[in-house]
């Protein structure tokens, strides 16, 4: 088991190292002279040369690579050309807000997907099952950025139930304590601000969760089908337990284990999907930060975002592995080969590439 964990950590490190190599390569293929860019538009030839030297760009490529890696390990992801601040500081400031959004989306995801999956399994072929399948079909086909706009149109413009965008209503100001709007509102003891923050969170969270719900619902459905046919459920029925108790206490509890794995991996995927959601809702976060960086051609900020999202990915995958080990004792003694993250990632990639209602 320890060996397995060490293996996963090493794999995570290799992935991160690869990402950094790729990041370095991206800097290299960027057209234009970074020294000129750093020195500014009106710099003289001497100033450009000075910038080249101070950036170490006159060094051989391999030396540049090692100094790049050295800086990254010290937490220096470069300086944003646009904000003139260290990229890591910028990201640290906006990341909590993205995590808030991801958490909210996750809550919606579980709240919708679990009952839907259970119902779909319990009454196969009936309304809930059909609904789950439709959702899967739509979730894999509707562009998330378009869904965002459609929901804005319906719930903010036509019905007026929810705010169009932003994180707080007009005239509400909060001191930035944690960077998470809802928590800051709670800390400031202002219930009105808290309500406003939650209201502003609903549409983006629903949008973000939309394409993920179907995957969880499908997982729950298929593991529920297995669980409902299992001997322990028949036994529970035979003891005269109520149907509710049989389904929820006995079948569902066992069916939830595969779900936790996929939920864990979805955290990283959702964080990635924020690039398509946050800007539309005018929320701060790593997604909108990255989009701005992309549009400003702020390469270091883009690479910094990729690296940070990559780190979150590697960490969540490791946590998923550990959780899997604790939930499934058979993995511990090595009698059962664990589903590696590699295959797990393929499952998660299914969100993107084939997350439709295909397999049962």
């Amino acid at each position, binding site marked *: 088991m320890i060996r397995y964990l060490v293996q996963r950590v090493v794999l995570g490190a*290799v992935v991160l190292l690869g990402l950094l190599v*790729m990041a370095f390569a991206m800097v290299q293929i960027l057209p234009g002279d970074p020294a000129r860019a750093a020195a500014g538009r009106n710099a003289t030839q001497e100033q450009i040369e000075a910038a080249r030297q101070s950036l170490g760009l006159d060094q051989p490529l391999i030396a540049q690579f090692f100094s790049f890696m050295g800086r990254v390990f010290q937490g220096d992801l470069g300086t944003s050309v646009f904000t003139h601040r260290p990229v890591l500081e910028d990201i640290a400031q906006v990341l909590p807000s993205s995590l808030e959004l991801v958490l909210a989306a996750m809550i919606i995801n579980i709240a919708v997907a679990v009952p839907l999956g259970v119902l779909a399994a319990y009454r*196969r072929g009936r309304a809930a099952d059909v609904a789950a399948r439709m959702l899967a079909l739509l979730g*894999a086909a*509707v562009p998330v950025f378009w869904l965002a*706009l459609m929901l804005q149109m319906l719930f903010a413009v036509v019905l007026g139930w929810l705010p169009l965008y932003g994180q707080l209503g007009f005239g509400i100001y909060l001191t930035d304590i944690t960077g998470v709007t809802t928590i800051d509102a709670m800390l400031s003891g202002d219930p009105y601000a808290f309500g406003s923050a939650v209201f502003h969170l609903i549409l983006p969270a629903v949008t973000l969760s939309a394409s993920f719900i179907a995957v969880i619902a499908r997982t729950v459905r298929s593991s529920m089908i297995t669980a409902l046919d299992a001997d322990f459920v028949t036994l529970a029925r035979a003891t005269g337990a109520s149907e509710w108790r049989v389904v929820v206490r006995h079948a569902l509890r066992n069916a939830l284990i595969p779900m936790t794995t996929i939920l864990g991996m979805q955290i990283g995927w959702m964080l990635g999907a924020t690039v398509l959601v946050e800007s539309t809702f005018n929320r701060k976060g790593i997604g909108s930060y990255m989009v701005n960086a992309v549009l400003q051609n702020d390469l270091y900020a883009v690479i910094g975002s990729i690296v940070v999202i*990559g780190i979150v990915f590697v960490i969540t995958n490791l946590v998923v592995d550990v959780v899997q080990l604790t939930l499934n004792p058979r993995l511990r003694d090595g009698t059962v080969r664990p589903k590696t993250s590699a295959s797990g990632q393929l499952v998660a990639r299914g969100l993107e590439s084939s997350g439709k209602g*295909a397999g049962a």
Partner: protein
Amino acid sequence: MTTVAIRLAETKKRRRSPLVERIALVVIGLLVLIAVFGPMLAPYDPLKVDLTQALLPPSAEHWFGTDVNGRDVLSRTLAGARITLSATGIVLIITLVLGVTLGTIAALGNRVVDEVIMRITDIGLALPSIILALGFAVALGPGLQSAVIAVSLTWWPGYARLVRSVVREVRHAEYVEAGIALGVGRWRLIRKHILPNSLDIMYVQVTLDVAAVMLVISGLSFIGVGAQVPSPEWGAMIAAAAGNVTNGWWSLLFPGLAIAITAISFNLAGDWIRVKQDPTLREAG
């Protein structure tokens, strides 16, 4: 007689009626026709700006209304089919070539080569492809071409893995062993015996991936690094209309519907081909 009875039972068991798949195939056929003849079918010039006609709601003259620059949304959506579908097609072709080549090399090459290729695929699979593609797209500069290259560069790892596992399986099949025993050359063995038998699964994957690739490409265009402004690429159209949530829903609705309908059709078709190819899936409920 019994076979017929079993067939009938199977057909009844099938979850979706074949009608749905047939509709999906018809839609795909129509989309291909639109992609080929779209600009000819378009009632107006998809690029012609006419500010006096800006943001007209759908009418008999402009079925899908006009956008903020007075361009006919129907014409643009029709013209966009070619751009979006061909960009998606090119990505899938590049992906297929890269994935099959590297996957085969990994499966048949020595351990070091295999290890290196597989670790690269780890990176590719470790992040959502839109995130990596954004990085590549920035490095390559904005434009549909960079978006296509960027998505291809992030999409092949899944294929390489799939090909690798299939080739490794096929390699030990009897007919391949027989070929080796007969002294068939390595290259000929790969080309004539191993690859053709590994590729069936690829067709299914490609069909299933059309939707996903299209969503990433249109997503990149929406963000602003893919197809650029006047282009009627569907994602770029949505981006251009994003400011008209309050006053021009039609300019927003139709390109998105086009993406969704295309994606659903290809996903249904992909599932159908998969179930057809793999009889074991037919019984899965």
